[in-house]
């Protein structure tokens, strides 16, 4: 089948603004969109820039907008798009474009760093493992699926409106540590996100959950944080 790819192009060395370029390619139903981009680059236009690595939805490099929706290019096959054989491919929204489909993700990772994404414990580690209930590990499990692809944050209407909002990905990492029974920094973690740029920035619009390529119930996890903040408030009064 002949498919058309209309791809956003921007080269900071020559372009003052972005434009779209059309490529035509013979495709099969099980080709990944990433395969198609690779073939365009190898066979037609070696200047096309995009990020990629593992090519099976684990490394989180290749989130982009495909036909208006945020997807991982390695996780979408031609046959998944049943409506047409033309594809419009654009960089993730929210972030500045460096070149073509490559965006500057530094602000995303800066927010990630900010929420203290590591285990904090005020108890001495035992000689062997710390004990943890299987149910507790299971409770945070959805958040462990996160591959930091930034799809959720890029899709989030609040993040687009308020650059200071932590965004769903960073808050999901907060969830992962807040509810890990081994972490003892619950109080200071909650204090850090109990604000309109933090957890209350979330207006439960579900876009993050909708686009997550790993099927993480992001909105629900953020809801658990809100509930925890309320519970702790109640405990204090």
């Amino acid at each position, binding site marked *: 089948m002949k498919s058309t790819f209309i791809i956003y192009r921007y080269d900071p060395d020559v372009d003052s603004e972005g434009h779209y370029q059309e490529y035509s390619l013979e495709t099969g139903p099980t080709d990944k969109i990433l395969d198609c981009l690779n073939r365009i680059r190898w066979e037609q236009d070696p200047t096309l820039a995009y990020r990629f690595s593992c090519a099976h939805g684990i490394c989180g*490099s290749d989130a982009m907008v495909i036909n208006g929706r945020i997807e991982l290019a390695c996780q979408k096959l031609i046959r998944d798009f049943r409506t047409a054989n033309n594809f419009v491919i654009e960089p993730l929204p929210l972030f500045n474009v460096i070149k073509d489909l490559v965006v500057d993700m530094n602000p995303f990772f800066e927010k990630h760093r900010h929420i203290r994404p590591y285990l904090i414990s005020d108890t001495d580690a035992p000689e062997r493992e710390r004990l943890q209930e299987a149910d507790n590990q299971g409770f945070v499990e959805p958040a462990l699926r996160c591959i930091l692809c930034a799809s959720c944050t890029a899709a989030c209407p609040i993040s687009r409106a308020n650059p200071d909002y932590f965004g769903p990905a960073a808050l999901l990492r907060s969830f992962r540590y807040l509810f890990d029974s081994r972490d003892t920094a619950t109080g200071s973690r909650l204090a850090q996100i109990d604000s309109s740029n933090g957890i209350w920035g979330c207006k439960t619009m579900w876009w993050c959950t909708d686009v997550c390529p790993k099927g993480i119930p992001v909105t629900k996890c953020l809801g658990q944080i809100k509930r925890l903040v309320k519970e702790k408030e109640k405990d204090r009064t």
Partner: protein
Amino acid sequence: MKHQYDVVIVGAGLSGLRAAIELGEDTRTAIISKVFATRSHSGAAQGGIGAALGNEEEDHWKWHMFDTVKGSDYLGDQDAIEILTRDAPRTIYELEHMGVPFNRTSDGRIAQRAFGGHTSNFGKAPIKRACFAADRTGRVILDTLWEKCLQRGIDFFNEFQIMNLTVQDGQCCGVTAYELATGKLHHFHSKAVLLATGGAGKIYRTSSNAFASTGDGMAIAFRAGAALEDMEFVQFHPTGIYKLGILISEAVRGEGGVLRNSEGERFMERYAPTIKDLAPRDMVSRCILREIQSGRGIDGKDYVFLDLTHLGEEVISSKLAEISGFAQIYAGVDVTKEPIPVQPTCHYMMGGIATDTDSRVMIDDQDQTIAGLYAAGECACVSVHGANRLGCNSLLDVLVFGRRAGRAIRRYIHTIGLPSLSGNDPTGETAAQIAALLDNSGEERSSTIRTDMQAIMMDSVSVFRHRDALLKVMDKLRLLKERCRHISIQDKGHCFNRDLLDAMEVGYMLDLAEAITLGALSRDESRGAHYREDCPDRDDKHWLVHSLFRYAESEPPHFLTKPVKITEFEPQERKY
């Protein structure tokens, strides 16, 4: 641009990150990586990390050591394997203390499951030794260590491609790197360099490896004088998704999944009566291909079925969630109802840069080193995996030897000052190389050369090998290397110029492919993952030795051997 550090680590996968943590807050450390740190291929490790914790059943590190030695087909160095397996439980507890979210037993301890080649009591029965976090074990450990490095404030240079090592008078004192976003060259001047650059699985057409796994570090060290070791031992994982090579974890079989041929037969019972589907990867890959050769592939094609339909939704959703997603997305298979079509896929390099157990890089068979240069992880060959690596020993390897590298480097840098650099432009040579590549006006494209190399290596230097075909491959690789001289780079830009990097990567891979093929041709026996149809038996009299390769400018590498270290377990026939 010039930078000065105590230590430069190349590669932000698990061995690089673990070493950085070990170097401590008082060591000025830079990590440079061709991809953003969390995109590193360590994150693709699925099934588990092995350690004799004994949480599920009685276990001892010596059983783990025996299994690893036997799994290696007796080519692994037993002093190194002892270090690996003895240090394993401490390694797991350390990860747990850092926050790695392992699956748990009903009494709250770290859960463990069975994996290929891991047994109790020196080979008697399969044992639960693999610690895991569902089937995304590598990913959660990678995230945890990366976040630990963020906490420590370690300097990351993401999307920086290593170009050259700076070696003066036998001492390594830095690296030159290319910044993808700007096309600028950076020189990192340091007391020591650790290569933690991972594998080279992209040499083969069907591969579980990431696009980044092109063996850059191995090839750059090789060209700079380091010896490569045991390159002919390339692991083909038995269960890659048909045609795509995407990994389906051995944990599937650890949890009870079985392989079936076109007759529905669980054929591994015939080949490995004791541990059946949990035989080591080299054997299972050969068995699958034997079934296919005997006409028992599914529908007469070149794949078999991996059946987990009997495991139940609970086990699949809590322990094998990731791979059920892969099967659904890429093969359209609901694993609770249908088997997955699988075939062997290139997965892991047992060989690599020759190192001692402190990760120091060796240049020959006389234990000579390049001062200040270290290597750890898949790019290195200690050797703990010998001729065949057991599943869940690679995550262990990168963490145990990443830490040891960090410790050894820490000791080393306290004995020396920052070496002074001769000349005033350490990036000059690299700049000239890049300019020459960009100016080249040949007819060749790196993508076609790479495709040709991948096809040749897959057809003749994968699971089954034969002297006649290998001889032809040596000639073909020479021709491909010649064609490389005529690659023209279409992209002349400075921003994310993949075209330029592709050309360099194919050159690296060809150097390594040549060493792999030379090793396969020289080694007239079959051992572990190296199987020669014209010499099907193991030959301990002549070949219980490591292969060593030394780089030569315009001819194939020089081939040497060195003895295997045997401390505890004398070679025996390898049966399961």
